[in-house]
C-alpha cells in the first residue's frame, strides 16, 4: 500500500463519514458543517487527481459560497436552529432502501466496465498548462463555448430568479403604513 493509497483511503473515509453525518445529524447547522468537511474532502480528492484548479474552485464555490449560503439560510429560518424531533420523515426506510439498492446496482455496473481497474498514466500535459488549456477550451468556439455560455446565462437567471423569489413583499404594507 503506497502513501498515496493511504492518503486516499483516509480522505475518502473522512468524506464518506462526513457525508453520512450530513444526512443524519439532528442539527441543521451541524449538518451544514459536516457538508463543508465532506466537500473539502472532495476537494482534496481533486488534488489527488491533479485537478488543482477544480480543487480550489470547489473550495471557493462549495465552501465559500454554497455552504455559507446554506448556513445562512438555516439561520434565517430561525425555527430550525432549535431542531426538535426526528430529522427524518416517515418514509426514510424507503429512501434508505433505494439508496442501498442503487449503490449495489452501481457497484455491479462498475464491475462490468472493462477499464475500471485502469491505473492513471502520467499527465500528457504539464500540470501548469492545464489551467490555460481549460480556459481556452471554455471560450473556444470549437470547444465548450456554448455550454459555458449557457451555464453563464443559467447563473444570471438563477441570480435574478432568486432575487425575485426571496424578495420580501412588504412594499404594500409600507405604503399602507404611510397613509
Amino acid at each position, binding site marked *: 500500500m503506497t502513501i498515496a493509497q493511504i492518503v486516499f483511503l483516509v480522505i475518502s473515509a473522512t468524506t464518506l463519514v462526513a457525508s453520512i453525518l450530513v444526512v443524519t445529524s439532528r442539527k441543521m*447547522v451541524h449538518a451544514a458543517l459536516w457538508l*463543508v468537511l465532506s466537500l473539502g474532502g472532495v476537494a482534496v480528492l481533486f488534488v489527488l487527481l491533479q485537478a488543482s484548479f477544480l480543487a480550489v474552485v470547489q*473550495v471557493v464555490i462549495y465552501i465559500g459560497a454554497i455552504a455559507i449560503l446554506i*448556513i445562512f439560510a438555516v439561520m434565517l429560518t430561525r425555527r430550525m436552529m432549535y431542531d426538535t424531533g426526528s430529522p427524518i420523515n416517515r418514509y426514510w426506510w424507503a429512501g434508505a432502501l433505494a439508496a442501498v439498492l442503487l449503490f449495489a446496482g452501481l457497484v455491479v455496473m462498475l464491475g462490468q466496465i472493462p477499464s475500471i481497474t485502469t491505473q492513471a498514466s502520467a499527465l500528457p500535459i504539464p500540470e501548469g498548462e492545464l489551467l490555460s488549456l481549460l480556459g481556452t477550451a471554455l471560450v473556444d468556439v470549437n470547444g465548450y463555448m456554448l455550454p459555458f455560455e449557457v451555464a453563464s446565462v443559467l447563473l444570471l437567471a438563477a441570480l435574478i430568479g432568486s432575487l425575485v423569489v426571496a424578495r420580501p413583499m412588504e412594499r404594500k404594507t409600507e405604503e399602507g403604513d404611510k397613509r
Partner: protein
Amino acid sequence: MDFNFWDPFTWIGEWLLNLLVGWGLAETIALTLLRFAGAVVLALVLLLIGGVLFTWLDRKLSARIQDRLGPNRVGPFGLFQGIADTLKLLTKEDIIPAGADKIVFNLAPLLVTMSVVGIWAVVPFAPTLIGTDLNVGLLYIISVGSIGTLGIMMAGWASNNKFALLGAFRTVAQMVAYEVPMVVVLLVPTMFTGSMSVHAIVEGQSSLWYVALAPVAALIFLTTSIAELGRAPFDLLEAESELVAGFNTEYTGIKWGMFFASEFLHGLTISALTAAIFLGGWQGPGAEARPLLGFVYFMIKTMVVYFGVTLLRFSMPRVRIDQLLDLNWKFLTPLALAAVCVTAVAEKLALATNWSRLGVHIIANVGLLILTLGALWVRARMVRRRFETEQMRLAARSESAAD
C-alpha cells in the same frame, strides 16, 4: 552549497532538506514536511514579532491620531506592552458559555487563524522565498479567505448569543458580497500576466507596477480587502456601539487572542497581497540578484500599505450596513466589471512597449474614473431632488393638516 549572504533562504532550505534526507526520509516527504515547518515558523514569527511589535506601533499611531500617549509603561516607550498583553491573555480563564456548541465554538478561532496563515503559503516574500508557487494562487487566496468567513460564522452561531449571531450575519453578508468585486478585479492582474500565480504576477511587474497600469483596479482591490478584513470604516461585524463586540463577544482568553491576532495578521496579509499584486512585490533595483534585498523591498511596501490602511481605520467613520451593501453592489461591483472590460480593451489596443501600455491604460482608467464620477454626480442629484420633493410634499401635507 555555499552560504550566500544575499540569498539565505535557498541556503537554509537546501541545508534542511539535506539534513532530513540524510536522516533517511524520502525527498518528497521531506519537502512537504519542510513546507509545513516553514508555514509554522512563518506564522509564529509573524504572530509574535508582528503581533507584538506592530500592535505597539498600531496603538501608538492611533494614540497620536486621537491625541493620547498610547502604551508607555511596559518597557522603553511601552515597547513590551504586546508581550504583557499576550501573557495576560494566555493566563486568563477560558469561558465557554452555557448552551454553546462546544466543538464548533472551539473550532472557530482555529479555523479563522488557519485561513489567514494559509494565505501566506502563496505570498512571494523574495525571489527565492515562497511557500508554494500555486498556478491558481489568486483563486487560492480567495478560497482560503472564504474559510475564514466560515470560521466567523461558526463563532457567531456557536456562542448562543444574539449579538454574536447578528455580528456573524453581518459578516457573511459583507464578506460574501465583497468577495464578488474582489474576484472580478483580480482578473486584471491575471490578464496582465496571463497567470494566476502570485509569483508570476510579481515577476510580470519587473518593469511596470500594475498599480500604474490599473489604478482603479488597485483601489477596488484595497477597498474590498479592507471590507473583507472587517476594519474601519467597514467594521460592522464588531460594531461596538451596536453589537457589543460582534461575533467574538463570548470569547475569552487565548481564543479571543486568536481572533485578535488573526484579524491583525489579516491586515498584514492584505497589505502584503496588495504589495505583491499591485506594487511589484519584491521587485526593486538589484532584487533579482540579491533575494534578501527583495525581501526588504517587499516588507517596506507592505508596511507602507499597512500604515495607509491603519490611517484610514482611525480617520474614517463607520458606514451603515445598507450603505455598505449599496457601496458594494451598486458601485464597486459594476465598477470592477467596467474596469476589467476597460483593461481588456486597453491591453488589446496598446503596443507592447511600456510607455504605450502605460499611456493607454492611464487614459482608460482616467476615462473610467471620470465616467464614474459623472454617474455618481447624476445619481446624487437625483437622490437630492427626490429628497427635496419628498420634503416639500411632507411640508405641504403638514400645512394642509394644520389647516
